[in-house]
């Protein structure tokens, strides 16, 4: 079987960086009061029981909230850089 190219997806580090940026952007655009509170994932709804092992949903909500808080400003810079690079180099 003479294959001319690799049969599986050719991952480069650049495509990994692109995927990570897209995922972080997706988490960052979840709006707090228009969306997350409506489906019960708001900030005020995560302070549940004070057992020493919070559940999966609480951990996920904490993760979403912390990603949105921490990555908001760096994402502005990273997205601008990506836009400029994509405009220049296609």
């Amino acid at each position, binding site marked *: 079987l003479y*294959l001319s190219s690799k*049969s599986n997806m*050719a*991952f*480069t*580090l650049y495509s*990994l960086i692109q995927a990570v940026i897209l995922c972080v952007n997706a988490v960052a655009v979840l709006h707090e009061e228009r969306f997350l509170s409506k489906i019960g994932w708001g900030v005020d709804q995560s302070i549940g029981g004070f*057992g020493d092992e919070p559940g*999966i949903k609480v951990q996920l909500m904490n*993760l979403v909230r912390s990603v949105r808080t921490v990555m908001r400003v760096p994402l502005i810079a990273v997205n601008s850089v990506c836009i400029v690079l994509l405009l220049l180099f296609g």
Partner: protein
Amino acid sequence: MDLPQHGYRASAKPRARAGPHTGDPLLFADTSSAAPPMNNQGYYTPGYNIGGAPVGGPEDAGVNNLFADPMASAAMMYGSSLANQGKDIVNKEISRYVSVNKLKYFFAVDSKYVMKKLLLLVFPYTHQDWEVRYHRDTPLTPRHDVNAPDLYIPSMAFITYILLAGMALGIQNRFSPEVLGLCASTALVWVVIEVLVMLLCLYILSVHSDLSIFDLFAYSGYKYVGMIFTVLGGLLFGSDGYFVALTWSSCALMFFIVRSLKMKILSSFSHNSMGAGATAKSRLRLYITVASAAFQPIIIYWLTSHLVR
């Protein structure tokens, strides 16, 4: 003439001695502290001798050809002090992001450990004790404990896998240098993805284990040994040999991962055993361990099947 010479040597020696931090005598037997004082003496003595005695000393004229100009020797000293400052700054910056001591722990291996670990990766079924041994609160280095994870074997196996992939492609006349880089970055990206997914799962299930990010890289990197074994089997014995080696290394690697991670993930749970909620949690942790093990054969097949056709 002698005073600045002594002053510089005196200041150079403590710096050379303080360099290798001997806070952890288990890590390395560092023999580098003997060398720098000799070098400094070799460099700076001739320069000062020439600057001090331009007419005398025909016996050291041959040695001092490099430093015939006192300006050059002064510039040399200034440059080396700048370089040392730069090195200190770089070390400080790097140790802010990546704790170098923790990284050194993973490379403190010796050949006996490497042999035993490789044997364990290929045939783990007879090993009895999978517990990582501790020494006064810190985990033992890989040199002293065969169960400890290390980063030497994964990195060496990664490079060997790239070379083997190049050879396999060359045998099929499909080689070009870009394909080599593509193969390397694909393998690296899959390991990074696996480590990120494991970190996410461990965080979401609030598993308070002592698995650091380097530990996860180590356990994910052990699959490269399986990949090398599989590719070698395929190259030496054709397509049948490839599938035999694939099933053998998949089973061995799955057993290895399950036994190693079971100690780290599931045992951290036994400290706070609550009530009915405990069984669901422990079931999820078991799923994580088994899923991580089941992912290994898939990725081994995915990354090596195109090499052996």
